[in-house]
């Protein structure tokens, strides 16, 4: 859906009062390249998801000015940061303005005493850590998209961190931020009004409300982040198992051990190992008797990581683990960001390599439910695969979400031959996502621990997951965004309004 030409002219004229011409992008390629994220995308329907224009603001004031104009003219606004999100948050469903914050990437204040940094939300964790590294510090938000996802997007999606068991996830690491409300007003969100307070008991706790809203409640523009000493030592042993059950028991025991430097544990299932084993040249070869892999990760000072590592090695051995050696362990962990993005392993059932996109469905699942959830999920993907080579099962992994091992990010990776997506294939996929989410809910899990849950398919189950809480979402959306300007169509929040469309 796009807005009429005369309204577009009116909009551009209005935007010129707050932005320079080169900050307002209206060309077709500018719009096409801001219409997609890595989530599977019905490429044949690309033109249905275009913004009318994109803007590149450089300050909170400019963002606020743009939002005020959109509010006045009733034009949709979609915030876009890295655009690496896997849940469509940055994809415009109703046209309008994409607010691309990539130019807001400055480090504004580094407070070495209180251990905080204040940044524009358009900075990536990689670039930020290059600056912090000189001071022996780091910001431990570590998504798979670490080199190119941006702080603002992490806030908007309330992202999950690979080393979150030790340092916490984005919601724990962001102390406070400037936020432009759907009306164009600017507020500061955090514990209390101080920018660097980590715990306050004043008033309602609003920080979580303005994180993970997928751009439906405004735009974060400047954030103050918690910093840690750059770890002196990192230990990331990978262990092989000849059966899934032992590996599953092992990962639980590692997470429950209560080791202070423990930053995460991962379990790769038989399907994932089969996927990794497809191409010895591309990946580290695994002997045929390896059926599951477990990785544990520790960060800290040398003299705490070493004894902690001994304890975890002992636990692993007791569960039948075979250590894969330093080279594989260090290399595999170092590759944690790149590996998930490698799209090449798509294969038809007969073995033909085809370009496929990586897609993942995730959930938060309690430890005890992991085996049955994974079994049910693989069966859903097998059903797709029985019907067509458009889909390929790339296996599952589960990752501790917290340092006690209560629940796990549980993810199934599916290869999708996007070139072959048509309406039928897309409908098959959307139904599969709905089924996958239903399995998570049937096990008292959440339908996302990591990527959000506003994509077509799974989003249908959000009201079921949240119950009365979903109605509170509608109440809040209507109150904060009276004209449904911010990212309309997402999270089924049009239900908050009589008419739906703005």
């Amino acid at each position: 859906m796009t807005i009429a030409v005369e309204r577009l002219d009116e909009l551009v004229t209005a935007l010129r009062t707050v932005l320079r011409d080169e900050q307002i992008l209206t060309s077709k390629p500018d719009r096409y390249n801001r219409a997609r994220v890595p989530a599977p995308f019905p490429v044949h329907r690309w033109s249905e998801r275009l913004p009318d224009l994109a803007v590149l603001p450089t300050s909170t004031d400019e963002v606020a000015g743009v939002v005020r104009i959109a509010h006045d003219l009733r034009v949709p606004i979609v915030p876009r940061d890295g655009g690496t999100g896997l849940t469509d948050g940055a994809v415009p469903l109703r046209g309008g303005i994409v607010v691309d914050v990539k130019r807001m990437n400055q480090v504004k204040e580094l407070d070495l005493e209180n251990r905080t940094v204040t940044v524009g939300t358009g900075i990536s964790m990689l670039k930020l850590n290059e600056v912090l590294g000189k001071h022996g510090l780091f910001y431990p938000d570590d998504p798979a998209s670490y080199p190119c996802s941006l702080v603002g997007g992490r806030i908007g999606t309330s992202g999950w961190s690979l080393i979150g068991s030790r340092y916490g996830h984005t919601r724990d690491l962001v102390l406070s931020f400037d936020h432009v409300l759907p009306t164009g007003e600017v507020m500061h969100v955090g514990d209390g009004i101080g920018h660097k307070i980590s715990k306050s008991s004043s008033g309602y706790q609003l920080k979580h409300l303005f994180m993970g809203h997928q751009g439906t409640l405004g735009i974060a523009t400047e954030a103050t982040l918690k910093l840690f000493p750059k770890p002196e030592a990192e230990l990331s042993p990978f262990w092989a198992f000849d059966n899934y059950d032992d590996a599953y028991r092992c990962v639980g025991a590692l997470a429950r051990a209560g080791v202070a430097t423990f930053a995460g544990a991962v379990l790769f299932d038989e399907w994932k190992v089969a996927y990794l084993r497809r191409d010895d040249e591309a990946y580290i070869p695994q002997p045929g008797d390896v059926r599951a892999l477990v990785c544990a990760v520790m960060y800290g000072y040398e003299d705490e990581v070493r004894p902690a590592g001994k304890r975890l090695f002992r636990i692993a051995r007791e569960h039948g683990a075979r250590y894969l050696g330093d080279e594989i362990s260090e290399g595999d962990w170092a590759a944690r960001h790149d590996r998930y993005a490698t799209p090449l392993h798509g294969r038809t059932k007969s073995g033909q390599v085809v370009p496929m996109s990586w897609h993942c469905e995730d959930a938060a699942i309690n430890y005890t439910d992991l085996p049955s959830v994974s079994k049910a999920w693989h069966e859903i993907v097998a059903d797709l695969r029985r019907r067509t080579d458009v889909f390929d099962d790339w296996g599952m992994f589960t990752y501790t979400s917290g340092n006690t091992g209560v629940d796990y990010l549980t993810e199934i990776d599916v290869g999708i031959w996007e070139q072959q997506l048509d309406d039928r294939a897309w409908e098959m996929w959307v139904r599969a996502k709905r089924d996958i989410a239903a399995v998570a809910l049937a096990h008292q899990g959440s339908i996302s621990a990591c990527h959000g849950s506003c994509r077509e398919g799974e989003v249908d189950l959000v009201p079921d997951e949240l119950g009365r809480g979903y109605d509170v979402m509608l109440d809040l959306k209507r109150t904060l965004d009276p004209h449904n300007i911010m990212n309309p169509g997402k999270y089924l929040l049009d239900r908050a309004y009589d008419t739906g469309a703005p």
Partner: protein
Amino acid sequence: MTQLDRQGPADPVSVPFTPGMRDNPDELAEMPEEIARAVEEPADPTPTEELTAEWRNASYNCFSSGHKFCREVCPVMQVTRNESWTPTAFHANVVAMDKGELTIEDVAADYVNCTQCGACELRCPNTLFTGDFYRFRTRTVDVVKAVRALAVESGVHQPAWQSWNARTDELTHEPVLGETPIDQEHVRDWSEGLDLPIGGETVLFVDCEAAFYRTSVPRAVAQILQQAGYEFGLMGEQWCCGGPAAEMGYVDQAMRFARHNLDNWRSTGTRRVLVLDPHDYISFTEDYPKYFGEEFDLEVVLVVEVFAELIREGRLTPSVPIERAITYHDPCRLNKRKGIWQEPREILRAIPGLDFSDVDRVTQWSYCSGGGGGLPVEKPELTAAISASRLEKAAALEVDTLVSACPWSERPLTEAGEAVDIDVVDIHELLAESLGITVGGSRNGGAGA
């Protein structure tokens, strides 16, 4: 009690398997296919369809890759933060053209914003993990060249590139000095007084920028070779290598120039071409073999590698101390495109007196001068911004000198260096100085020399 029962039905897709293995059950192959079909190619394809057919899978491999690690190493993206000018956008546009959503007229101007440095290719997970195992290695530089060529073929020109190539065609050399006359008569002026022969088995090819603007570079190279007793001559009638034309999409012109040069080498009995400019090195080792196939049987030798070898063999011994605090700028076409990063460092470490703050080559994947790929011709302000960003990184090391090994990088880097009081010198010149050679020539086209 945890339920670990994972025994599924006997259905072959219900258990993990490796597609294509001979011992897979027959039922796998017998499953009916509801959707996936071969792509139908048009019988009489348009130029755009030809391009998208060639690049479709490669572009999908980028499009479908979830993360865009290329972005943070892209020099244009670093200074513009404009997602339309990223390596991944260049691939996505091809996908959109394949789907009939965008045309070459829509996208041509965006493809100006690339220096063809190749950083994105190195940083792409496709390349990092699988090399060319599936023949899907990400080749953004080639995609950019192909789309620019399609634009020219379709009559969509960028104004400055069009006039630049017209003037190059007219002069047989690039108009590096703008309005200053450049022609065949003056192409060897840089070598005045060095008494160099013409032709012979080995000739030194001097790129247009070095031949007309930064003449101190070829003078240094020639004098070092003479000191080492390395026999070589100058080219009979040297034209521009044609590389810039190829980079900007003027392929026919590039091939005409290449043909002239090849014929001229043949006429002087040349078997070996010495190259001091990394851009020429790309032209002669990548473009020319593509144009001529097996007919191009000349040896192409990079001067920096020769010098490192001569130092190793003891035929050159830098001994005059040079008291400078330096860092080294890896030229994109050496480090990123060709993997040549050790030899320049060998040379610098052999020069006494230098205080060398090195930046490792991988970190330098995200560095560029902005001087390549025709960017300075069409968007000099972006080149300047990229050079300024490179000099900022040098300034953080508290050096007084930035050493490069690429004449095309040195003009924009020098201009940016003035703002932070850092001198930009060429590695060949520095070596010559340490060998006690008085180089002569100009580092700025003779202006105010």
